[in-house]
């Protein structure tokens, strides 16, 4: 088998064997519909409730505060639309971070078409929002604030507890998109003080198409999918039972192994970053230097086209990303990098490494061997390289 070094774990992960094994019986043995009253259905319903408790435990929530979804995007849509529709009489103003994922950004923009007003909360050079600035932007008609817990693109972790406190004082609902953070750092919804939190199965190494929304008990939320009484009447449609089983098992394992994972990926990430700084000149690290996801490294390489870098690394069996999966495929300059003030020509050379447990020191050594070669090759063809100005790494 050809060498493969996969460092794009924010985009997709290999599902754990224990998770696959747990899911298998629910395809062909325990395949009953959980809404039926006979035992083949009620057993499956009980299994779903067990997984709900496991996912709740991972984030310090109560089981009844978890709605299973088809992933992070649906959870974000449900949070934004569910609150905005259910609380329309209270107000029509929404505030979101300037560096949110498209599922938050485009959900908020959808409400602009319905005559709501959306304010974008700007970030500093590290991608951090300022809770004091948020306080100034909240108005009597503000109903919802949404700020991502951590950025998949630049790794920065936001001061969510402080932001939540501002929202609580102003009596405004607060949602955080924690797709990048749940499974990578410890999360407790009560400590954070959030009203809603989205998570995805991907960082837990559960199957794609799985996720959940935490909503504080007692919160009114308009369903996105009208149908039957699944998910306590908050999401119609027969449940993705194998996916939910997989998510629950992955949540259980993550809760047990998270400290070990954090140690493992942080050591590898630090080695990777140090090695790149030592071997590639004219780079700029992006995101916060300390308040960042432990397995996340992001940087911009001057006079390089990120897509070209990805393809050349691919030819060596190395898989990385240039930023968010959606933005990179659309060949757009990353809005996140623009928001943190990276000049467009430097933002073109964005590269993001996201590590997980399967990664090894050998993987990092291999990347550090190949990356300088690939960068030099691309720079030798670049007309920009001769006209360069020096950039600082940090």
């Amino acid at each position: 088998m050809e060498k493969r070094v996969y460092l794009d774990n924010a985009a997709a992960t290999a599902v754990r064997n224990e998770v696959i094994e747990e899911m298998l019986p629910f395809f062909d043995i325990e395949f009953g519909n959980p809404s039926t009253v006979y035992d083949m259905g009620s057993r499956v319903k009980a299994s779903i409730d067990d997984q709900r408790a496991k996912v709740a435990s991972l984030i310090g929530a109560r089981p009844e505060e978890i709605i299973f979804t088809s992933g992070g995007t649906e959870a974000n849509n449900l949070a934004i639309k569910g609150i905005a529709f259910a609380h329309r009489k209270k107000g029509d103003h929404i505030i979101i971070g300037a560096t949110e994922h498209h599922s938050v950004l485009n959900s908020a923009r959808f409400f602009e078409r319905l005559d709501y007003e959306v304010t974008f909360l700007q970030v500093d050079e590290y991608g951090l929002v300022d809770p004091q600035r948020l306080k100034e932007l909240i108005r009597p008609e503000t109903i919802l604030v949404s700020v991502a817990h951590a950025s998949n693109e630049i790794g920065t972790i936001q001061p969510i507890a402080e932001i939540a406190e501002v929202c609580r004082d102003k009596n405004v609902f607060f949602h955080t998109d924690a797709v990048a953070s749940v499974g990578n750092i410890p999360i407790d919804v009560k400590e954070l003080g959030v009203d809603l939190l989205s998570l995805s199965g991907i960082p837990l190494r559960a199957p794609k198409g799985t996720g959940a929304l935490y909503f504080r008990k007692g919160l009114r939320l308009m369903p996105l999918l009208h149908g039957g009484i699944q998910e306590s009447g908050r999401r119609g449609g027969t449940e993705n039972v194998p996916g939910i089983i997989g998510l629950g098992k992955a949540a259980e394992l993550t809760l047990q192994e998270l400290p070990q994972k954090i140690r493992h990926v942080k050591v590898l990430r630090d080695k990777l970053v140090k090695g790149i700084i030592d071997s590639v000149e004219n780079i700029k690290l992006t995101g916060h230097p300390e308040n960042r996801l432990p397995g996340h490294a992001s940087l911009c390489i001057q006079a390089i086209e990120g897509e070209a870098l990805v393809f050349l690394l691919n030819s060596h069996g190395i898989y990385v990303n240039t930023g968010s999966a959606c933005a990179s495929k659309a060949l757009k300059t990353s809005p996140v990098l623009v928001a943190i003030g990276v000049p467009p020509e430097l933002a073109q050379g964005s590269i993001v490494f996201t590590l997980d447990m399967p990664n090894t020191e050998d993987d990092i050594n291999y990347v550090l061997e190949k990356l300088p070669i690939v960068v030099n090759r691309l720079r030798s063809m670049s007309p920009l390289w001769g006209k360069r100005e020096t950039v600082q790494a940090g």
Partner: protein
Amino acid sequence: MKFVKDIKADDTLDLVCRMCPLHLLEPGEKLACMKEGQVLEVLTDYDGALEDIPSWCDKCGQEFIGIEEDEDCYKLYIRKRERNHHGKESLSG
């Protein structure tokens, strides 16, 4: 339709934004945990509940007290009865 005002409830069930037929399932579960004579307040934005809940109370031997219309929802009041006035066992609650 019997309209009431300022009814004091012992417990509240908020079913606003939640789908039909939860308004026929959750009141029974809630009443099961309440004492004879106590009043349950059911909040809902589902118009169908205005007919369904009184009818459900009748079938299940619970006393339907009445409805109050609020700004964002209806409030329906049910008094828990162990047996209905015909002496029939409650089906639920």
